[in-house]
């Protein structure tokens, strides 16, 4: 039922829209999301490059388009404050062997998936990409949406760390159920909460994405243990013990626990974390126990002294 459209279209095929007549020539396959296949195409009339997504299922792809449209309306209403999240260009159907395949055209974003970006640039760049990503999420949340299926594959990063979210198939409005999710990044999978779409659902996924990128092995171990014993305490243990995560430790703990007032605060705290000079990012040494003891003793003595002074 949904299989026939999954076979890739050959390079050079011209896709003509049934309703609006737009003509797009397939350049190459860009990737595959849960709702459809994405191609790089050249619009024949303008010779501009776009990305074109062909849906597997009319309802699923249409509800994704609806989200993009709603986002577009919202950003128009707000004027040009913030970046234009939506990138919808055209919606149409393509007739292939007597079947109608729904597709939409969006702007083409050059970039690497988050993982290969970090592999090229080094793990430190997560701080920059992370901040951009959080800002994108913040904009979504403030418009009443939750991204839902946040994972490294769905994040494209430009050479200087600017971030574009791709695949809006999992976007749900706040208060609804999360439509699509991927096990590792799902808080239900870790017993850390429900699947109702709220901003904290994305914070949680964001935290697991960070763990995945910087401490993959321990995450894999925790994720593949018996489901009965798996819990979000395993994530906390990884956050506390892995050296690679130490710069983000406090932030990640809060994200896993859903402990931010809102995404603006999450952004703010992440920013403070990554803009503080490197020297201050070294793990702070704990106050030695003897010093605490001495302090307590001093306080007691002060108390006694005061008591004695006032008493007499």
């Amino acid at each position: 039922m949904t299989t026939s459209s999954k076979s890739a279209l050959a390079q050079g095929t011209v896709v003509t829209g049934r309703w609006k007549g737009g003509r797009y020539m397939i350049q190459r396959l860009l990737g595959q999301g849960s709702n459809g296949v994405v191609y790089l195409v050249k619009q024949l009339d303008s010779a501009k490059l776009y990305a074109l997504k062909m849906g597997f299922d009319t309802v699923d792809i249409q509800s994704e388009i609806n989200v993009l449209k709603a986002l577009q309306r919202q950003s128009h209403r707000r004027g040009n404050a913030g970046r234009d999240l939506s990138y919808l260009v055209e919606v149409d159907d393509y007739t292939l062997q007597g079947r109608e395949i729904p597709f939409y055209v969006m702007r083409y974003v050059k970039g690497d998936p988050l993982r290969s970006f970090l592999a090229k640039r080094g793990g430190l760049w997560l701080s920059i990409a992370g901040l951009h990503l959080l800002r994108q999420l913040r904009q979504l949340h403030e418009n009443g949406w939750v991204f839902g299926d946040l994972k490294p594959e769905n994040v494209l990063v430009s050479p200087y760390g600017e971030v574009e979210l791709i695949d809006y198939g999992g976007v749900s409005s706040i208060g609804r159920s999360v439509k699509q999710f991927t096990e590792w990044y799902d808080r239900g999978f870790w017993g850390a909460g429900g699947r109702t779409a709220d901003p904290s659902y994305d914070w949680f996924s964001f935290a697991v994405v960070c763990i995945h990128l910087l401490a993959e092995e321990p995450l894999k171990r925790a994720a593949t243990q018996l489901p009965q014993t798996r819990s979000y305490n395993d994530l906390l243990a990884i956050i506390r013990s892995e050296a690679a995560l130490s710069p983000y430790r406090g932030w990640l703990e809060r994200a896993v626990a859903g402990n931010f007032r809102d995404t603006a605060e999450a952004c703010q705290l992440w920013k403070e974390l990554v803009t503080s000079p490197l020297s201050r990012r070294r793990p702070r040494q704990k106050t030695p126990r003897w010093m605490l003891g001495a302090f307590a003793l001093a306080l007691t003595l002060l108390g006694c002294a005061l008591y004695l002074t006032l008493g007499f």
Partner: protein
Amino acid sequence: MKQIMLITDGCSNVGESPVMAAALAKQEGIIVNVVGIIDYGTIGELGSLEISEIAKAGGGMSRLSGTQKLAQTMQMMTRKTVVQTIQHAVNKELRQILGNSSFEDLPPDQRSQVVEVMDELSETSPLEIALLIDASASMKPKLAAVEEAIRDMMLSLGARKGNSRLAVFHFPGPHSGEDAVLDLDWTTDLGTVRSIFQRISMRGATPTGPAILKVMEFFQYGTLKGHESKNWMEETGRGEGMLGDYVV
């Protein structure tokens, strides 16, 4: 919306044809989905044929899945079935208004509005799902995974805006002639799903068809004993102990 989800790893071998039972369920407005579990080797040609036949007759879909992907598969099927049920209803309405066309034939802008309504309905319509678990001997090593998948499913159902409830059955029962046993009555409560399969004693037979009929009865009367409950109690004399589970 009413759905039965059958989870099995082999062929039925006792009683009425499960394909016929599924066709009956569909007549009663209950959609039947089937998951075939394939952890060790395959499910056999006969098994997979039966699975797809049951689903076709029951108006649902069938999938083969390992225990690893079970939770994901079950949720995908549930969600798709809800969407499709609504899609059918919407298409029917549209045909009445527009004549011979379905929403796929609408121009994109109108289609967008229709899908908005469909999304809304998928999220808010009440949903009842009865899971019917094959507990024949070969399923034993897979039950822990099945239980986990059920817990996961409750989590997703719990997040829906509309009322959703779940009941769990296994088959066959410990006594011959007992085609399905209720493990978990209609619930929306996650806490109770911890250990549902304590009472299972494994037997070899796989009366898939009769079990589906039992679950249909449950949809109708809210109990497995259905309209014959009186006779059944008189006949067997075991009624009292069992009754406690269902009344309240």
